[in-house]
């Protein structure tokens, strides 16, 4: 029987020295990198309301798609994960495929937005953006791509206004919030959300980020930065790392009332699949989602586990339901090289087959 550890002290010392040397050599260049930016693809603001901006992206060629595609991102974090940098951009790849892409930037709520409700977001902001795009293109119905919480919003809208959507795509969208592996949901169950929101007003981004980091505490708080030292001698990789850091931590606060309703009705009550969510006094019945639906989920998603996303198939009313499983995580589905190869092409092919 041997010891499982064969760590030679000299080699270990060398390992530490090498690590320290790389760190010492790399940090000055880290400081010289300056600011990083995201939002790589040219775009035009076509509609503004309060802090929201609706963007229309401009590809290098004219779109071949007949129906425009509107992307509705989550309220947590900014939507620029979809257009992080030129070679990691869902938006850019969709444009290359011939799609005509719009995106909602919800903005950064402050205390003036504390009373915004889910109705304000779904029937109001999202609905008016959809109407703007419909009007610009003279169409009865457009395509909608909802991401994460934005996917849940899209499902609500699709159930309330099925006539305005030609096709619906949901990406990493939670539908059943009570599956046993959904850690976020688990943690909210015994929270007094009323006391939480009443005492905070808006929910600070730092608090949200702390919660997300503690889903994988050692990996996200420590191991990731140990790994950073390995790439410090590669300015391009460091820049990519910093860009991702900026995206993660440059995140908006959450409007208090909308947060209260979302946690209560979706996370705690799991009302979406029970048909009990009410938006503006109208019940959201997923059976009314009658347009074709493409549901894309990530197999290693720690925020929205596949078990939370896949039940959509059992609850929507459409007879044209497609599921796409992606080998990656909640963020990798937008920025990994595999995602660049697989996701936009799949979305475009699915839409094209449905006249989009």
């Amino acid at each position, binding site marked *: 029987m041997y010891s499982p550890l064969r760590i030679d002290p000299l080699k*270990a010392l060398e390992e*530490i020295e090498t690590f320290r040397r790389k760190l010492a050599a790399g940090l000055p260049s880290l400081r010289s990198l300056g600011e990083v930016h995201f939002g790589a693809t040219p775009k035009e603001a076509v509609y503004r309301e309060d802090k929201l901006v609706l963007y229309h992206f401009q590809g290098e060629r004219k779109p071949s798609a007949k*129906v425009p595609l509107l992307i509705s991102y989550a309220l947590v974090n900014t939507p620029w994960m979809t257009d992080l940098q030129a070679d990691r951009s869902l938006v850019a790849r969709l444009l290359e495929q011939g799609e005509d892409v719009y995106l909602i930037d919800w903005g950064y709520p402050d205390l003036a937005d504390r009373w915004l409700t889910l109705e304000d977001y779904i029937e109001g902001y999202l609905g008016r953006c959809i109407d703007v795009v419909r009007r610009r293109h003279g*169409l*009865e*119905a457009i395509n909608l791509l909802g991401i994460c919480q934005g996917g849940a919003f899209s499902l609500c809208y699709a159930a309330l206004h099925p006539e305005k959507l030609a096709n619906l795509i949901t990406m990493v969208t939670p539908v059943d919030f009570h599956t046993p592996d959904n850690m976020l949901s688990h943690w909210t169950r015994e929270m007094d959300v009323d006391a939480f929101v009443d005492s905070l007003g808006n929910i600070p981004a*730092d608090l949200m980020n702390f919660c997300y980091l503690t889903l994988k505490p*050692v*990996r996200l708080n420590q191991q990731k930065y140990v790994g950073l030292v390995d790439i410090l001698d590669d300015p391009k990789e460091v820049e990519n790392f910093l860009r991702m850091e900026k995206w993660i931590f440059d995140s908006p606060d959450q409007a208090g009332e909308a947060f209260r309703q979302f946690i209560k009705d979706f996370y705690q009550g799991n009302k979406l699949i029970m048909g009990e969510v009410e938006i503006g006094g109208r019940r959201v019945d997923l059976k009314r989602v009658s347009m074709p639906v493409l549901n894309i989920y990530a197999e290693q998603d720690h925020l929205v586990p596949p078990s939370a996303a896949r039940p959509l198939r059992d609850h929507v009313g459409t007879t044209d339901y497609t599921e796409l499983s992606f080998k990656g995580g909640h963020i990798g589905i937008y920025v990994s090289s595999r995602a660049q190869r697989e996701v936009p092409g799949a979305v475009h092919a699915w839409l094209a087959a449905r006249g989009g």
Partner: protein
Amino acid sequence: MAHADAAPGGDFERLARQSWDAWQGWMKGGATAGTPPSATASSEAAERALAGLKGYFTLLESLWAGAPGAASGGDWRSWMNDVFAGPAQPFAQAFADTSGLAGGGPDAWMADAQRAAAPLLDGLRKDMNLPTFGLAREHQERGQRLLLAVTDLQQQLAQYHALLARAGRLAAERLESRLAERSEPGRQVDSLRGLYDLWVDAAEDTFQEVALSPEYRTVYGALVNAQSRVRAESRAQTEVIAREFGLPTRSEVATLGQRLHEVRRTLRAQGELADEVAALRAEVEALKRGRAAAAAAKPDPAASRPTPAGGKSGAAMSLPAPAAKPKAAAGKRRPARKNS
């Protein structure tokens, strides 16, 4: 140290000390040769990286301090237990590092809450359980509630820490068990980084189980709720003071915001109603024009038929039943319509 004589010339400890001194000097911003001039990095990312790396180096240092000889049959279980399940266990440290940085963590929050509440709580502690009377009774009760809330938060935070500490010990056990599976040659761990990565996997897998347990859910919920109570009570206290100084309070601003949003919703609904009425009027006008045009194109039957005395010609206008909504269709053109 068990490995002190493993290095050539027997100066292993000196080398190790130099390495750690350099690192610590760098961390403290010292200008040791070959190190950056300051550890106070300007960018947020660098600061965060330093915090994470500090935990990593602390762990390596702990490993180093107790390492048995290389490839020895030393007591590796005891070593692992000392490092990963001991009082300075690295798992809880990973939380503590983040807690201080993110601003949303419970430890940093507790420290802030205690600091903010301290002036309000002085003098209240000894009267915490006394009934209150007279003119100041409401003020005194508010103070008591805040004190109780802070005390409760301390208890909830202690429960949370205890749970994290247990998760750390379970992670250490899991690491030991996984290491035991790698005893045969070729599968042994031969680097500190390899050991670290193995521990991270064990820690995350263990935390997954703990964090999904009913106990964690209860402890976490109680902690968050205790924070909310402290926040609410300290704000109530602050608002009393603000009012005395004639300053607007958060509650007043919230009330204004709520009323403003209600007015906005009402106005928007009225605007949408007005648009709908305008659209309906336009449709009615179009129908009227259509009927008038149709009537003008036909010969007048009244000219060849007698009209009853006192009667009116023609029928009362009635609107046709509304047409069914067009079915959603990709690419289907719709007529341009204002405010659709």
